[in-house]
């Protein structure tokens, strides 16, 4: 099949995955495996006075019980927060470095959240390991728990880490304080809000797991993550071994969304245990462990304000956020939060002045990490809620106030005063397209129909700009095989998105060869030479670009080889659709014959590149949500959702729609159903799917999506990134729709998630019944 960029090719992965032939971690079986379980802290905060594993070590079938003492004896290093790593370094605004709290794979003297690992038990069977874990004697001396940023910063608060006084990790600002204050002082109107961007549990479908085998010095880690090479680097760091001695293998990954990029402590433990025992060690986490010990997301207590002139034009934006970071600082979490929140704080709008401060605090909860839309989802929540209330207070039309303040396409490239220069963007055209797609004008008639059925109806919108970033370089290598096959090796792999399909599509389109010729190799450091992984909507942008450039390098090499074969100079050779041709003649050789020629000479017809592409791109869009609310119960039904997106050039509209739908679905979860609840003692109350509500298919409307392609000049494919617009734009659009429906009741704000009782209470004294 000949393919082109922009064609809706169906996923090649699905046949395998839908027939149960995927190879997830549970499917990996190694000979002579030993089974491991983790003994975890039942306390949110406690000193460990005594830890005695002797009875467990003597229990039937037990092969090893590891505690922190074993880690120390083997020189294992704490998991690195990487705030001082030159690649991700960020300093506090006063120039100081951030504290880097230790994060041991097994607790040292102290536990800091429920589920903190305390001991690792390895036995012949999982049941024996569980039985033995129950025999470990641990004497905890409980300490008071800190469960939000406000109590973490309070004088006299219990301190989690000695190295982080006041539990503070960071204080970072961007913008002009004085200009912002001056603008507020002369403003015609100031609108203020206090918001909570709710803590989320990622809940990917495949629970965490890890396996390792060791032969001599060679360690093989079977892991579930978002980049094999990153895990190799961290494991070699923690164990103090050479990267060449570590191989990381990732098969199919059942959902990533960002949190799977975190190098989990159990990766170290399986490797250590396998090395000690000389046999493979397998740890498969269960769902309860996922809830308490997966890294979580968001959790910002926000104070924000917008200053406006008499015409509703924005004069300034002032935002501060206290970030509840949980008990530890996972690698790159601070970098991701700051890099994706500050620089897009003004979104699609012009603010002559702005200021944003982020303060991060440690608490006795699961650590926070990047989740799909990190930073940008918080920024759009702040902006679009502020704008909505400013319009209401000034009695301005909600669309008109946005129109007056959008950055015009003519202003591109645009310096947003928060550290970003937008390369392109047609925000007003996109908003208008979304309003048409949503039939904004026809809303009144639909509202009347709802009213006739006793229901409230509201509509809301959100314009957003996000920044797709991530580590600068990504690797790809293309090899032509004389057996008429293209082998493609890429450093960034999937966790369900369909990378195999789109990489092959990009390569086949670039070379003009059949799609079926491509075999994509991902996720094994022994097979793929380098890589970083999926994060920050970067795979198509960076790995896709590397695929294109790798193919071009291969073609240039092919021209030399073809020149050999046809006795022509490479400069006279053209390449098209599989054929090298001497220009202006009928002399030609096929790429696969050139590959055979290369092979005969002991060479390969291949092209590899570790492509460095540091610039960010700015995917943007507009979402319009429409809700119906049962006024007697507060139950919200999202009845329509429309989404126009500029992801740059569209590679595969079918898979892109999947990304958009999935992102909006996750945004619906944050806006309407997902509530993470810890009690005052730091116990997780929403610790199962019976209590933590992931939205279901029947919570979704049929989505209307459209694309508005404004290609990005910064990469060969012209793409901007598609993974995170859904989660960035959906929550504020939904909240604005709910508040619109509740205006008659005097509602001016609503907490996420907008669960039925929350909505019912927001109706206040005027609610029915």
């Amino acid at each position, binding site marked *: 099949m000949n393919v082109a960029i922009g064609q809706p090719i169906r996923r090649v992965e699905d046949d395998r995955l839908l027939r149960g032939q995927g190879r997830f971690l549970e499917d990996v079986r190694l000979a002579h495996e030993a089974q491991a379980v983790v003994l975890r802290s039942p306390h949110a905060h406690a000193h460990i006075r005594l830890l005695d594993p002797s009875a467990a070590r003597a229990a039937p079938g037990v092969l090893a019980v590891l505690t922190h003492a074993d880690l120390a004896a083997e020189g294992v290093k704490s998991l690195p927060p990487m705030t001082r790593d030159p690649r991700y370094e960020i300093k506090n605004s006063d120039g100081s470095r951030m504290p880097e709290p230790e994060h041991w794979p097994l607790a040292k003297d102290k536990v800091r959240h429920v589920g903190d690992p305390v001991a690792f038990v390895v036995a012949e069977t999982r*049941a024996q390991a569980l039985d033995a874990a129950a025999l470990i004697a641990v004497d905890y001396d409980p300490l008071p728990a800190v469960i939000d940023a406000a109590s973490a910063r309070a004088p006299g608060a219990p301190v989690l880490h000695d190295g982080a006084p006041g539990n503070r990790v960071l204080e970072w600002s961007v913008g002009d304080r004085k200009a912002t204050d001056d603008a507020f002082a002369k403003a015609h109107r100031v609108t203020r809000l206090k918001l909570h961007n709710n803590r989320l549990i990622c809940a990917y479908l495949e629970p965490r797991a890890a396996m390792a085998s060791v032969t001599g010095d060679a360690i093989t880690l079977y892991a579930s993550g978002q980049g094999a090479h990153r895990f190799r680097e961290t494991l070699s760091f923690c164990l103090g071994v050479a990267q060449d001695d570590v191989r990381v293998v990732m098969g199919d990954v059942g959902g990533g969304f960002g949190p799977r990029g975190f190098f989990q402590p159990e990766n170290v433990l399986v490797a250590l245990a396998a090395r000690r025992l000389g046999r493979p060690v397998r740890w498969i986490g269960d769902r309860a462990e996922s809830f308490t010990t997966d890294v979580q997301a968001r959790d910002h207590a926000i104070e924000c304000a917008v200053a406006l002139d008499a015409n509703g034009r924005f004069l300034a934006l002032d935002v501060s956020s206290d970030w509840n970071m949980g008990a530890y600082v996972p690698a790159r979490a601070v970098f991701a939060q700051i890099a994706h929140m500050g620089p897009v704080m003004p979104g699609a709008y012009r603010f002559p002045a702005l200021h944003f401060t982020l303060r991060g605090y440690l608490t006795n909860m699961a650590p926070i990490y990047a989740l799909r839309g990190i930073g940008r989802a918080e920024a759009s929540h702040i902006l679009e809620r502020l704008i909505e209330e400013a319009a209401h207070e000034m009695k301005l039309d909600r669309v008109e106030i946005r129109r007056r303040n959008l950055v015009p396409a003519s202003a591109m490239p645009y310096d947003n005063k928060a550290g970003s220069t937008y390369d392109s963007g047609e925000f007003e055209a996109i908003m208008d397209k979304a309003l048409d797609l949503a039939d904004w004008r026809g809303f009144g008639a639909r509202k009347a129909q709802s009213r006739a059925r006793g229901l409230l109806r509201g509509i809301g919108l959100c314009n957003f700009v996000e920044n797709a970033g991530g580590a600068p370089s990504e690797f790809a290598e293309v090899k032509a095989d004389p057996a008429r096959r293209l082998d493609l090796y890429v450093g960034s792999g999937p966790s369900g998105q369909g990378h195999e399909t789109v990489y092959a599509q990009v390569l086949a389109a670039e070379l003009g060869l059949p799609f079926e010729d491509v075999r994509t190799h991902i996720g094994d450091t022994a097979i793929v030479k380098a890589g970083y992984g999926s994060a920050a909507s970067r795979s198509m942008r960076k790995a896709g670009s590397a695929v294109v450039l790798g193919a071009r390098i291969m073609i240039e090499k092919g021209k030399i080889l073809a020149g050999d074969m046809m006795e022509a100079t490479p400069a006279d050779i053209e390449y098209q659709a599989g054929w090298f041709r001497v220009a202006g003649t009928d002399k030609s050789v096929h790429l696969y014959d050139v590959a055979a020629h290369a092979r005969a000479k002991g060479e390969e017809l291949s092209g590899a590149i570790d492509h460095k592409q540091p610039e960010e791109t700015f995917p943007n869009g507009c979402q319009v949500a429409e809700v119906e609310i049962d006024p007697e*119960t507060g139950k919200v039904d999202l009845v329509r959702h429309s989404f126009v997106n500029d992801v740059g050039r569209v590679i595969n509209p079918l898979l892109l729609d999947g990304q958009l739908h999935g992102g909006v679905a996750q945004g619906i979860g944050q806006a309407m*159903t997902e*509530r993470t609840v810890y009690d005052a003692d730091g116990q997780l109350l929403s610790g199962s799917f*019976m209590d933590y509500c992931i939205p279901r298919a029947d919570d979704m409307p049929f989505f209307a999506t459209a694309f508005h392609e404004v290609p990005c000049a910064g990469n060969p494919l012209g793409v901007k990134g598609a993974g995170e617009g859904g989660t960035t734009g959906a929550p504020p659009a939904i909240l604005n729709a709910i508040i619109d429906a509740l205006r008659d009741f005097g509602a001016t704000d609503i907490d996420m998630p907008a669960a*039925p*009782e929350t909505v019912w*209470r927001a109706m206040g004294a005027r609610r029915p*019944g």
Partner: protein
Amino acid sequence: MYAFNYHRAKSVDEAVKLQKSASEGSFLAGGHTLIPTMKQRLAKPSDVIDISGLKELQGISVAGGTVTIGAATRHGDVANSPEVKKAIPALADLAGHIGDPQVRNRGTIGGSLANNDPAADYPAAVLGLGATVHTNKRAIEADKYFKGLFETALEQGEVITKVTFPVAEKAAYMKFPNPASRYALVGVFVAKTKGGVRVAVTGAGPGVFRSADMEKALGASFEADAVASIKVSSKNLNSDIHASADYRAHLVTVMAKRAVAKANS
């Protein structure tokens, strides 16, 4: 899960004997509560006695104004039974909205009633219709069967064999599902029966209960308006991360009103 002995009983009598001789024997019907609890190591039965396949516990029949349902009858079978749909459509409707298709294809009425989860649906139908729970030892009226949170009148060695429901003149069930678990946050079953109007509430309190105020009002006028202004006290209702007692009390009124409207439609 801990190791246990599995038995497939050939009769109710044998099941009871097996349980008696076990150090800790649990009956297994649909397994929807027992199995997850065992998997989490929160239950450690020495012996699991499977009664789900017993012929004497199966089947649905309607005769003389009574619907009889064997204890091991699956929710899906009740939901899809033409006899139940005709005799007590509200009962088929309730069964058809328990959990999801997987749950309805495994879960049994006897298992649900023996477990008596405070948010389960079947207790509302049994209490609301004034049904009778039959065991291997006796017949227990609904009003004497439910004893609060996961507690019932069942004694050690007592197995539910069937449930008999008197056909009501009118009946309906309305539930407001917990968005996460889809159990009833509040469910109200209303029935106009020969013995008077009955209103049973599940999900809201520590166990299914009747509302005397609502029954009285509906006895005078079986119309939605009759209960629209009756407030249930939130004093003994559940309050948790999903809903406050006040909100649950409010939903009882709303669901009762809607159930009456549905019964009249």
